[in-house]
């Protein structure tokens, strides 16, 4: 070291320290940010292995796909309702008066290399995004993962669902095609239906009576590409931050307690699996974009407020609201010189408000009803909480029935029955199905509680006949993999070795890190 010899590869390596460049980077970072200790803990963070923990990842990764494809689309989309004459590559539209927004969207589809694919991927990813949030939320609900201490993360997640639905609606309103324009017309009328403030909010937002002065396009654009994505990104950061701080929940099983987490570590195992899953999510979205056509706006034409198409349906996540609007009786209130369109205001404003408020309030509601104010890190099996499971199933049944009700006209047409019959059926079903589903779920949960070995693979029963002719039955020995690992695993070996962390912080390591550190193994 002291001799002024030329630096060789070996001396260079030695100067970098035992961990080479990586060690050097960690050192420099730690000097400035003090990341090493927390970083090591983060690399060791344990992720419980269960397929249902992947549902939230689908949401996260479809959001990544949305951002990537959205940036591409934003390079070519023109958010303007200025009317122009179409002269693009799509022959059937040539010479027609269309808006710049519509023209640029058709141009993305046919004039930009890979544009149609990216557009379709973006739309599919949006549908997947909302769907995976809903399924993820159902998993959280039915397993009781929202309970104390995780109520705040439930609230953040519900907020993200609302944001995702709004973002989706605003997004498919942007191309200014016939379907999206009709959606906006309905949206305007829903805003207008709000007592006292409705007509003011509507004309403020749209810049006058529908269709307004065109400002809604620009406003929706900036909300869609900047404001809501920022809000979602912020909520997402908080969602994941809380997840790291509070650690994962896990299903019950041997070796799993309220005070530990059992699973595989962040680095490298979980990192590899989840990065692979990001690629798979993107891949599936790309395949859908390649082979499953979605929102072919060139077939619908540019929006003209006096034109309409048959079988007008919104994207799937707005279907429940459309269904509610369809089955609502025409109960407009008129009197004292005022009109309150209850046939719109109740199903399209009050009803979704009620649903989301129930969602927000549920953790507190359940805490009050059960008197359970304890911290919970172990998940419930849905059958063990029959009332909660029944309530959740009834809610999903209600929303699904309303979703189906948004296709009354298509169903009547397809089955050759009168619209009247279909409509009244759905009015009855909307009340009946949730009740029946709730009761049946409740009963099923109670039944399943009494059954042993449910959820495990059935074992073969071997029938023996003895020499005397007597028949006996013997249950076969379990084959490997027969045991339900999640429910009855082997006693869990403790394997992560924390010694290096303890050794790297000489002085005062023993007593302070005793609760937080993993146990020394082997």
């Amino acid at each position, binding site marked *: 070291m002291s001799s002024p010899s030329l630096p060789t590869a070996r001396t260079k390596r030695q100067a970098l320290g035992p961990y080479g460049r990586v060690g050097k980077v960690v050192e420099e970072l730690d000097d400035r940010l003090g990341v090493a200790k927390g970083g090591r803990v983060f690399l060791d963070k344990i992720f419980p292995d269960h397929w249902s923990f992947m549902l939230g990842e689908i949401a996260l990764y479809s959001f990544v796909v949305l951002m990537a494809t959205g940036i591409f689309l934003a390079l070519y989309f023109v958010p303007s309702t200025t009317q122009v004459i179409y002269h693009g590559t799509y022959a059937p539209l040539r010479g027609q008066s269309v808006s710049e927004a519509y023209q640029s969207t058709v141009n993305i589809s046919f004039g930009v290399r890979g544009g149609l694919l990216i557009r379709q991927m973006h739309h599919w990813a949006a549908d997947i995004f909302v769907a995976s949030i809903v399924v993820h939320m159902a998993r959280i609900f039915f397993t009781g993962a929202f309970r104390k201490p995780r109520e705040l993360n439930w609230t953040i997640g519900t907020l993200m669902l609302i944001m995702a639905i709004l973002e989706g609606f605003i997004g498919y309103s942007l191309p200014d095609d016939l379907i999206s324009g009709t959606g906006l017309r309905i949206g305007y009328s829903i805003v207008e239906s709000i007592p006292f403030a409705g007509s003011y909010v509507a004309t403020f*937002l749209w810049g006058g009576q529908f269709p307004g002065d065109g400002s809604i396009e620009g406003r929706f654009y900036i909300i869609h590409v900047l404001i809501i994505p920022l809000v979602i990104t912020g909520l997402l950061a908080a969602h994941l931050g809380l997840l790291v701080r509070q650690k994962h929940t896990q299903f019950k099983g041997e070796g799993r307690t309220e005070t530990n987490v059992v699973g595989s570590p962040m680095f490298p195992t979980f990192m590899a699996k989840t990065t692979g899953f*990001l690629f798979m999510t993107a891949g599936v979205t790309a*395949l859908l974009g390649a082979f499953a056509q979605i929102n072919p706006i060139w077939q619908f034409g540019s929006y003209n407020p006096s034109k309409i198409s048959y079988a007008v349906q919104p994207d799937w996540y707005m279907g429940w609201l459309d269904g509610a609007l369809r089955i609502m009786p025409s109960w*407009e209130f*008129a009197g004292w*010189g005022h009109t309150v369109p209850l046939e719109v205001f109740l199903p399209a404003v009050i009803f979704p408000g009620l649903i989301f408020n129930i969602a927000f309030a549920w953790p507190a509601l359940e805490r009050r009803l059960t008197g359970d104010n304890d911290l919970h890190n172990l998940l419930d099996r849905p059958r063990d909480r029959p009332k909660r499971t029944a309530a959740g199933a009834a809610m999903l049944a209600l929303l699904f029935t309303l979703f189906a009700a948004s296709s009354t006209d298509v169903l009547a047409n397809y089955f050759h029955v009168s619209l009247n019959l279909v409509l009244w059926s759905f009015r009855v079903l909307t009340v009946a199905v949730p009740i029946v589903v709730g009761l049946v779920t409740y009963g099923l949960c109670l039944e399943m509680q009494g059954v042993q070995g449910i959820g495990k693979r059935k074992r073969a029963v071997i029938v023996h006949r003895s020499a005397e002719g007597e028949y006996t039955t013997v249950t076969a020995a379990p084959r490997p993999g027969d045991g339900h690992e999640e429910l009855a695993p082997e006693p869990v070996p403790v394997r992560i070795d924390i010694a290096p962390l303890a050794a790297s912080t000489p002085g005062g390591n023993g007593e302070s890190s005793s609760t937080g550190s993993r146990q020394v193994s082997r």
Partner: protein
Amino acid sequence: MSDEQEHGHVQEHEPTRTKVPMPIATLSDPHLGDAAKNPARAEAIIALILLLGTIVIAGFGAAYWDNWNPWAIGATMGAGLFLLGFGLTAWGKYLMPQGPFVEERHVLASSSEERGSMAAALVERSAVVVKRRKLLGGIFALGSGIFGIVAIFPLLRSLGPPPGTSLKGTDWKKGSLLVDSNGRSVNHGTLVVGGIMTVYPEGLQNTSVGQAVDQTVLIRVQDSDLVTAEGRESWAPAGYVAYSKLCTHLGCPVGLYEQQLELLVCPCHQSMFNVRNGAVPQFGPAPRPLPQLPLYFDANGDLRAQGGYDQAVGPGYFERTTTKENGT
């Protein structure tokens, strides 16, 4: 496996390195899946998948460069990404240490002294502020409160015009000539019985207001001089009856006409309006009849409006006043 050997090998030269074992389960571990029990085979298969993914991704590059069909670009991109992701996930699942490992949870809650000290600081210090300097706090709250209110109003107010009377009226007035989207007027023989068209006040057929607000559906029915309701004896000369095309439910254009039953149908939420009796809603969520436009033939034989609509067209809103014609 080979990783372990490498670690050992390196350690000879760099004795200061600390070994951080991430033990790979023994092959007899009951937690191991079948595939993981034969790591060499798993590695070969994963290598194959990753290689295939790499090739297909290269194909994606070719497809994009050469501008193939969108489905080909998407297929190569999607399949390539999926294969790479699948390989990586399988690598993580079968060839990386699965554990199960155990991590103890930290107790998030602080000690009761720490809680007490935070609450004490909040309560005691704010008590000092509020008790001693009520006046200052009050003035500051007043000032920022006023700023909050003032900030909201100009922001909202500058977004757009207040509704005023814009929602009440249309551009139809006494003598407005009915024209189609191409600006052609309508005379006695334009429609056959059972025919339907959309008309606008002359000059507004290509404006957004004309299309969104003034749009009117014109139908010719069998009866000459159809009387749809009391007081509307002269409104439908020669069977030409005109209604606002805006559904009273949510403002969609009532664009479907069921000719046999003489019903106007809204495709959005299936409200149905009876053309014969003043477009009274017969089915669906629409609460009010479509307003009817009174018509007459002028000296040239062209259809004109006797006057505007007698009520606001389209869906309901709070300021909409009740009119006699509201009916059901």
